[in-house]
């Protein structure tokens, strides 16, 4: 038996984010994270950790390191401009009662 000289440095299993579809027709929703050695392992772990009571019909796992997130400091710049654009909502438009439901 030959042991490769380039054995990877053994450390913690990498972190994965878990998304579960609770039932057919609904989207996958983030439900938590876990450590696993690879993608298949992460799926098995996600099944045991997050769906012990039939919480899901489908699971996605994504390496946490591959997620790009917006900066908390950019919150104002990114999201505040929408606050003044109330004409994007249907309730902005006042219609006569005779029109009924529209």
């Amino acid at each position, binding site marked *: 038996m030959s042991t490769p000289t380039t054995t990877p440095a053994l450390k913690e*299993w990498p972190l994965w984010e878990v998304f579960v579809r609770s039932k057919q027709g609904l989207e996958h929703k983030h439900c938590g994270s876990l450590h696993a050695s690879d993608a298949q392992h992460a799926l098995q772990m996600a099944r045991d950790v997050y769906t012990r009571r039939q919480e899901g019909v489908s699971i996605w796992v994504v390496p946490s390191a591959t997620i790009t997130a917006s900066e908390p400091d950019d919150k104002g710049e990114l999201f505040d401009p929408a606050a003044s654009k109330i004409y994007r909502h249907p309730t902005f438009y006042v219609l006569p009662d005779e029109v009924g439901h529209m």
Partner: protein
Amino acid sequence: MYTQALDLPPSPEDQGAVRLAPAASAQEALQAAFDRRIDADGRIEPQEWMPEAYRKTLVRQISQHAHSEIVGMLPEGNWISRAPSLKRKAILIAKVQDEGGHGLYLYSAAETLGTSRDEMLAALHSGKAKYSSIFNYPTLNWADVGVIGWLVDGAAIMNQIPLCRCSYGPYARAMVRVCKEESFHQRQGYEALLSMMKGTAEQRAMVQDAVNRWWWKCLAMFGPPDDQSPNSAQGMRWGIKRISNDELRQKFVDATVPQAEVLGITLPDPDLKWNESRQHYDYGPIDWDEFWATVNGNGPCNKERLATRVKAWNDGQWLRDAALAHAHKQTQRAIKEAA
């Protein structure tokens, strides 16, 4: 599960680290924004600025909570192979698996604060980190398993429900998940005791004996009295703690007394009686010396629990290494095939 050790003062090196934070004006502005968010009952999320002391308190509290879940598997795990029926065995396996799951939710929540799983486990295994003292008592007979579900998990639920509104988002979300599952734990325990109470005189005596041994320990789970709990005020200020130790303890007593009557056992406290003017049950003094002796490592099972936990971790090392080596090999093979 829940750890009362949250109320332990931070160790001297932790305090030293907190004091190092510079008090620049930028820092003050960040602090003011943080305080405003807390005052408005807002939530803090992982990437956002937070005071170092808030972060440290949460890492300590959440990791100790996680350790309690993991160590909490041990007293009941002992009874899986001795459960009186296949039904009770399946229930107990499911419950113990839940505790493991709760530990994992909580470790993940703590990791969002910048600590690593390995660091937390090292702190548990070296004895530096605490876990709930309740697990340092032995489970002597089958009724103990029922009593743990009814009283220990019942006390845990009292503690954990307010934590669902904790100011730190990941902790609050983990607690919502935990609380949903915890109700099963309490109900299965109470139901197991009801079955024993319908049995022989000997079985009923077993239930009474187990209640006698666990009752006072469960009251101590809520932590020291409010006037001796120096960290509580800060925890309240930060929106981490919502209800005081004594208030939670009172709620637990008030909820449990009628349940004990239905079950047909006597809670081992001669001072326990309804107080019409307070509209609460009065109860006798708790033996805090015994509690602190156990917290400080001198309970009946402290050494055994930690040794079992460390052995399980060490025995699993080859498997964790093998899983990583396998993943590495698969990646290398895929790269080779693609080339």
